[in-house]
């Protein structure tokens, strides 16, 4: 059969790239909404543990509006301060070239999230559904799941789908944990983190900007957890000798992919660094961007600390409060060297936290917040194409999402409920 596919238009390939980043974000949000609606039926369980995010104030539903507001503000300021400090530590470590330490740390945090948090949530589901599985099978499955997940995060050449799946699962688990925080604290935290993201990426002294500039200057990867969409291959499947380099940063594109030629999305900051790399390819195949492994996001990757947890328990000593800072890439959206879009795992997490929190109120707010987040993500992608540099992915989406949540809860709900009750419209 004649193999001469009609050339793909820019709209198809661009649309496909966007779909390939929106799909995992949507899946992550959907899974978190499901988990939240199954497991969080008892609202009272949320205030039962202390973490870094609630260290300043423990919310109590009987407090007045201003008390809750101030307490949540304090909590979120503390959290943002901790995240800033940790990011600066990360920049310092990266500057001192402790890359292998960072990679091991990343593997450890993936292990922690998948093993412990995944195990906990598995146990919750077990107890809720009374699944009659025995402990050997459960532990074996959990062990397998965790180890393969750590390998997927660590190794560069695992199957793309497996790595992407594990990243989505990690994002979902951390996001579910965040939804266990008290309500006001969560909302203030989201707003504070998006403002922090804006500052950290765009201000000249911001830690994420420093990180990105350092990585670019050295032409290295930032070891961090980044979701990278599968790149759209150009329509020229002629045999190549080289394997597409699943490299992101190191070998910038030397051949234009379809996206590049037409829309210039590609020429982002990284490609300004040495345009010729060892693997020259003659065809216009897009570079294979490595789907993972936490390699540098052009975005602001931040080894961050969203997951800092310690449980203060009567039995635990203070020494055991290991602040498990996870190497989760916080905000950051950027482009891989083939034009495939990269989104930091922190973005997945905070989007899902927003939608999960909305789910704890009602599904109406879920729909509104989901649309707001996707719209925000689309706007961010447009800005990315326009400015062609690393951009924070949180601010637009999260602020739109919070706005829509408030509007829905305050204004839309009364309207829709009244209409439905009187059988008028919905």
């Amino acid at each position: 059969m004649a193999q001469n596919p009609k050339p793909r238009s820019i709209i198809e390939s661009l649309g496909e790239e966007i779909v390939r980043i929106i799909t995992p974000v949507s899946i992550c949000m959907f899974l978190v909404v499901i988990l939240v609606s199954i497991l969080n039926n008892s609202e009272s369980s949320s205030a039962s543990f202390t973490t870094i995010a609630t260290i300043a104030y423990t919310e109590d539903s009987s407090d007045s509006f201003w008390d809750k507001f101030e307490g949540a503000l304090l909590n979120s300021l503390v959290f943002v301060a901790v995240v800033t400090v940790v990011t600066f530590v990360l920049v310092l470590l990266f500057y001192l070239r402790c890359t292998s330490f960072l990679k091991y740390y990343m593997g450890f945090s993936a292990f922690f999230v998948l093993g412990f948090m995944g195990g906990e949530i598995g146990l919750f589901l077990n107890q809720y559904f009374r699944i009659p599985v025995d402990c050997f099978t459960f532990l074996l499955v959990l062990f397998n799941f965790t180890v393969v997940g750590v390998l997927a995060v660590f190794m560069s050449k695992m199957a793309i789908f497996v790595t992407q799946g594990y990243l989505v699962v990690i994002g979902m688990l951390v996001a579910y944990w965040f939804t266990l925080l008290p309500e006001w604290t969560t909302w203030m935290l989201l707003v504070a983190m998006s403002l922090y993201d804006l500052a950290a990426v765009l201000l000249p002294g911001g830690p994420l900007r420093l990180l990105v500039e350092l990585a670019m200057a050295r032409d290295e990867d930032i070891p961090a957890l980044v979701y990278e969409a599968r790149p759209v291959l150009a329509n020229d499947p002629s045999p190549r000798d080289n394997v597409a380099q699943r490299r992101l940063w190191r070998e910038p594109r030397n051949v234009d992919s379809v996206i590049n030629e037409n829309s210039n999305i590609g020429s982002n900051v990284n490609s300004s660094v040495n345009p010729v790399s060892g693997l020259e390819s003659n065809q216009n195949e897009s570079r294979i961007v490595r789907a993972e492994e936490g390699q540098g996001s052009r975005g602001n990757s931040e080894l961050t600390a969203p997951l800092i947890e310690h449980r203060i328990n009567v039995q635990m000593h203070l020494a055991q409060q290991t602040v498990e800072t996870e190497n989760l890439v916080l905000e950051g959206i950027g482009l891989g060297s083939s034009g495939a879009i990269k989104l930091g795992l922190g973005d997945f997490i905070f989007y899902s936290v927003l939608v999960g929190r909305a789910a704890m109120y009602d599904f109406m707010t879920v729909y509104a917040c989901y649309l707001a987040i996707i719209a925000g993500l689309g706007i961010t992608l447009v800005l990315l194409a326009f400015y062609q540099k690393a951009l924070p992915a949180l601010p637009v989406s999260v602020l739109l999402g919070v706005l829509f949540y408030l509007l829905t809860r305050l204004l839309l709900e009364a309207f829709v409920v009244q209409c439905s009750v009187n059988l008028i419209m919905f």
Partner: protein
Amino acid sequence: METQAELENNDNNNNNSSSSLIGGGVRQQWPTIDGPLGLSENDSLWYARYFFIFGFLMLPLLWAVNCYLFWPVLIHSRSFPNLRPYVVRSAIAFAVFSAILGSWAVTFVVGGERLFGHTWDELVMYNVADKYGLTGWI
């Protein structure tokens, strides 16, 4: 997304018949499921071998991932002679292990207390979690 890559992979494979036909099959160029996005044949040997070996550490999922990753090697029976033994053995080992595990799990569920007596209650996961307080620390 996934199917598109596979379609492209198949297109690649069909187009790559520039190499000689070996034994009735078309010579493949890309051993992994990601096609041109994945590993080359030389690099894959390490992966195939070590995934197979480490699967013996009670990690059958690693065998499954090995089979998934090298799916073209499994499908096209005459290709990649150095990779194929590892991948085929991984597939067989995964099938055997999951048969054993599955039959144990099904016995546990179906047999219940009639078969195990009171140890069923001691083995079932939700009771174990309650006993050791495993869900308490989040």
